[in-house]
Each structure stands twice: as structure tokens, then as C-alpha cells.
């Protein structure tokens, strides 16, 4: 038997209870965001005992929205809006595309997307210097 190419051990069916629990928590957080636009929190998927099946089930339940962003930050980061406005699936990868960690961010805009004030100030100085020759 070619053990190197053998299929991985079959796991139990995805833990539907855990997926439901995560969705319930997201619902509470989304409610908080609806009441306060400044609300900003996340669920760290790494901290949960989600196997691949449960993770995929959660992804399917949340669906996809209108926005997909690809960020190049010490490796790639993918931000995908789910079908629920305010819920964002954020996957951080290293330079080899290995997933380093994943989060579901609950916010108007994920904190990684907006340009930071210090970076804007530095960019303004840089552009000004470039234009002034």
C-alpha cells in the first residue's frame, strides 16, 4: 500500500454543535455592531477545536458577500466579506500560502483595511517631497 499517498484517516462527521455555537456567538456580536458602529471584535478560529469539515461547514453557512481583498503583509492575507454585512472571514497566510491563523471579524471594516494615521502622514511627506523635486 502506498502509505504516502494514502487518504488521511477519516474523521467523525463535523461537529454541528460547535458550528451552531459559533454562529450563535456571531449573531450576538453582529447585534452589538448593529447598535454601535464602533464595535469591533473577532472570533479566533485557531482557538476552537474545529476540524476541516466543521470549518468548511461554517464557511458555507456564512456564505460570500460583495468584497474580497488580498493584502500583501509579510505573507498574504485574504479578507472576504460573508453574506452577512459586518462579518468578515480573514485568513492570514505566510509566504508559502500556509494558513497561519484565521479569524471571523465583526466590524464595519476589518481593522487591517484602513490606512493607519502614521502611515498616511509619512506618505503625505513622501509625496510632497517627490512633487517638490
Amino acid at each position, binding site marked *: 500500500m502506498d502509505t504516502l499517498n494514502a487518504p488521511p484517516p477519516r474523521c467523525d462527521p463535523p461537529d454541528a454543535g460547535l458550528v451552531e455555537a459559533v454562529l450563535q456567538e456571531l449573531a450576538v456580536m453582529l447585534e452589538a455592531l448593529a447598535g454601535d458602529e464602533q464595535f469591533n471584535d473577532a*472570533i479566533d478560529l485557531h482557538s476552537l477545536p474545529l476540524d476541516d469539515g466543521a470549518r468548511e461547514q461554517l464557511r458555507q453557512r456564512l456564505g460570500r458577500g460583495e468584497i474580497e481583498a488580498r493584502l500583501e*503583509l509579510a*505573507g498574504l*492575507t485574504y479578507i472576504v466579506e460573508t453574506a452577512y454585512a459586518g462579518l468578515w472571514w480573514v485568513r492570514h497566510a505566510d509566504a*508559502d500560502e500556509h494558513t*497561519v*491563523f484565521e479569524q471571523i471579524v465583526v466590524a464595519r471594516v476589518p481593522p*487591517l483595511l484602513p490606512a493607519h494615521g502614521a502611515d498616511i502622514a509619512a506618505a503625505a511627506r513622501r509625496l510632497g517631497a517627490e512633487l517638490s523635486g
Partner: protein
Amino acid sequence: MTDSQPLGEMLRERGVSRRAFLKYASYMASLMALPPAAAATMAQSMAQARRQSVIWLSFQECTGCTESLARSFSPSLEEMIFDLISLDYHHTLQAVSGEAAEQARRQAMRDHKGKYIVIVDGSVPTAGGGVYSAIAGQSNVAMLAETVEHAAAVIAVGTCAAFGGLPEADPNPTGAVPVSKLVMGKPLINIPGCPPMPQAMAGTLVHLLSFGKPPELDALLRPLAFFGETIHDRCYRRQFYKRGLFAKSFDDAGARKGWCLYELGCKGPVTYNACASLKWNGGVSFPIQSGHGCIGCSEPRFWDRGGLYKALPTGTGERRRVVPIAAAGGAALGVAAAALARGRLAAAASKEAK
């Protein structure tokens, strides 16, 4: 601190944006089991901090701990730690050598008195006045005492530094001891593992840098974020354990199907570490996933637990204690218990002989 420039400014000049910084802080918060909201606080704290002076002392070690932290087959987030610290002394990584290296260590100690962090890998030999390991004519014992005197904190990385490791294993000819036996009155963190996980080392350093204090530790001074669960707690093969499906040998049908390795000596149930969740080599695999049981390398005295392939029910005590206790079982535990213990030892010895 080494440089006067805040880390945020320094990194921006190197092309590391605040976004990347925030991503790194989010990753570290995730590793340290902190709430996601802590990432922003960590990013802000680190951005305002100066580079942390670190002195790395290597004693009775194999360099595996350094390799774990520094070696990467591709750029990874863990490597950012080298932007946040100033590694002022490290035998393997530093450019200078000889007396110049020792001068660099003492200069860093003077410049950052009371603020530098000392990282130690390798155990410390104490037999014969410490003659079994010396650097630049100075015994490890003396160098450790000199360096930690004005340190802010000490981190013992690797099982050798944390618990004694292989050098301390029976019969311990060099009198090797862990760092904890020699360092008193300083904040001490143990990050064991043979080698330790790079995320554990980097995450602990970042926690110190962000919050100015060690993370929450267990009774063995190990960060709970990485050593709060056993391998068994997060093992993907636990489903087979629960169903009583065990591999009996490394090449049988059960092994090929990926069944539990408990009966082949896996020490997962008694080993606290993050291998099963974080995995190694960029999250690719870990020993059990590769078909070999956990050897318990992040626990004290794992070398003397009676054999890597002895299943846990046969005893995890040191080999030199198990046989006398079994032999004395007739008096202390009853004839039946002694016979059972002798039978298990014989079966295990027979299995090992094969």
C-alpha cells in the same frame, strides 16, 4: 533598550507598514490565547517600545532551540521577532567571535543594566566545579551568574535549560542542572520542548515586550498559552482512542489507517505542549500525524521515563525505580500486583527486543 527610535518608526523605515504590524500583533495575540481585541493594544505598545536587548547564552545544548526559532524554509511571521529585539549576544548567530563576542555581551549588560532579557538554552553542568563546559575560559555556572545579575527576566528555552534535558538524564555525569536551580530572585519563564516551538519563544518575547510582564504560567513556569493543554487534548487521532482503535505495531493495518498510537508508547496524554494544534514546519505536521507517538519532550525527565515505546500503563517512572518497586510489590502491593507488573515488563521487553 537598544535604539532610541520607537519600533513603529523603525519598522516603517524598513517598509513594514502599520498594517503588517497589526497583522503580526493579531497573530501573536492568537498564539498567546489572548482576546482578538488585545491585538490593537499589543500593536500600539510594541510600536511605542524600543528594541529589546536580548543576551542569549548557550550551554549544554545541541543548537536545536536556535534552529527552531531562526530556521525557516520560507519567510514567516515568526521572523519578525528579530526586528523587535536586538540580539546582542548569540554564539551561533553573531558575526563576531572570541574576545570581541564577550566584550559585546558585557557592553550590552552595561548599556541596558536592569532591562535586558537573558535567554538560556542548554543545561548547566555543575560537577567538578563546572569544568565540563566553559566559554572563553569561564564556566557556564559563572557566566550565567554574571549575566543574570542585572537582567530584567530570564527565559529558559528548550527542555535542557528548563528541566535538564538529555545532559541531565541518568547517570548525569556532568552534574547538569536546569536554569531554575541556579537562578533565584528573577522572573523566570520555562519554554521546554526538544526543540521548543518557535511560536512559543516568539510569543513569549512579544508578550514581554507588549505588556512588560511574563504571560500566565503553570506550576512549571511554562506559558499556559502553549502548555495549558496536553497533546492528547488536541490530537486529531483522539477519536480512535475513544473508540479503542489502536495501532499494535508501526506497520500494521491500524497504523496505516492512522489509528491511535497509545499502545506504541505515545506520551500525548501526559505531555503539555502545542504541537497538536500549531504543528511544526509552518503547520505541516507533527510527530503523531507523521506516524510516531509523542515522546513527551516538553516534560521533565522524559528521557528516563522507561522507554519511548513503552505504553503508559506500564509506568512512566524511571527505569531504575520501576524494577525494584515491582520486585518489592510482594510486600508493599501484594503478590498479584507484583506478578502483573512483572508480566507487563516482560511483555514490553519482548516487544522492544523485536
